[in-house]
C-alpha cells in the first residue's frame, strides 16, 4: 500500500485549473481532499476601484520554500498523501483565482488542518508579491498582514 507522495508546485501565467490541482492530489488511498482557492476580491481603496493584481515571484526560492513547507506539513500531519499548489504570476483580474491548493489524506481532519497551515505559511514564507492595480491606473504593492 506504500505510495509515492507528491509535492507539486507550479507558478503559472495562465488561468489556474482547479480540476488539474485536484487530479494531482487524487489517490485511491485517500478519503478526503481539501482545497483552498484564493481569488481577487472586488474592492475599493480610497475611492479607487481594484481592477486586478500583478504578481511576481523569486521563482527558484519560491520552489525551495515550497519544499520546506511540504516537509513541515508532513512533520505535523504524517498521514498527508499529496500536496499541490498552483500560483498565478503576472496579471490576474478581479474574480480570477490567484492560488489553488489541494491536500489529500485518508481522513478529513488531517487534510483540513494541513490546508490551513499551507495557506498561512505560503503567505508568510514564499517569496511572491502582488501589486494592486486601480481603475485610476495607479497601483500599490501589498503586504500580507499575517
Amino acid at each position, binding site marked *: 500500500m506504500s505510495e509515492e507522495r507528491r509535492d507539486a508546485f507550479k507558478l503559472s501565467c495562465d488561468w489556474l485549473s482547479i480540476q488539474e490541482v485536484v487530479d494531482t492530489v487524487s489517490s485511491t488511498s485517500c478519503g478526503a481532499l481539501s482545497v483552498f482557492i484564493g481569488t481577487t476580491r472586488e474592492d475599493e481603496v480610497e475611492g479607487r476601484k481594484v481592477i486586478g493584481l500583478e504578481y511576481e515571484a*523569486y521563482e527558484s*526560492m519560491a520552489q525551495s*520554500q515550497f519544499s520546506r513547507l511540504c516537509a513541515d506539513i508532513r512533520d505535523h500531519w504524517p498521514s498527508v498523501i499529496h500536496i499541490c499548489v498552483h500560483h498565478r504570476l503576472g496579471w490576474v483580474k478581479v474574480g480570477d483565482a490567484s*492560488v489553488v491548493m489541494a491536500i489529500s489524506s485518508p481522513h478529513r481532519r488531517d487534510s483540513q488542518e494541513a490546508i490551513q497551515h499551507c495557506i498561512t505559511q505560503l*503567505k508568510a514564507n514564499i517569496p*511572491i*508579491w502582488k501589486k494592486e492595480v486601480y481603475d485610476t491606473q495607479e497601483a500599490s*504593492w501589498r503586504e500580507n498582514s499575517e
Partner: protein
Amino acid sequence: FVKLCVIVLYFAQSKDLTGLKVEEISPVPTPISSGDLWGLLLQRHPRLSILQDHVVLAWRDLYIPIGEEEVPLRDGDEVAVVPPLSGG
C-alpha cells in the same frame, strides 16, 4: 580582504525604486555583514531607504535579516532584496 562580485536581484517595491530587476555589484568586500551589504545597496540607490526596517535579504534560499550577522558570500553569489511578502 577579498573582493568579489555579487548579483543583486530586486523584487516588488525595490524593483520599482531602483528601476532594475538585477545588477552586478563589484567589488564587494568580504567578510561583510548583511547590514553593510544593505548599506552598499543604499549608496547606489538612495530611494531604497524607504524600505529600511521593512526589508530582508535572501541568499542561498535563506532569509537574512539586515543586521550584524556576517554573510559568507562567495564570488558570483546571488543576493535578493525581499520587501514584505504578499503572495496568496
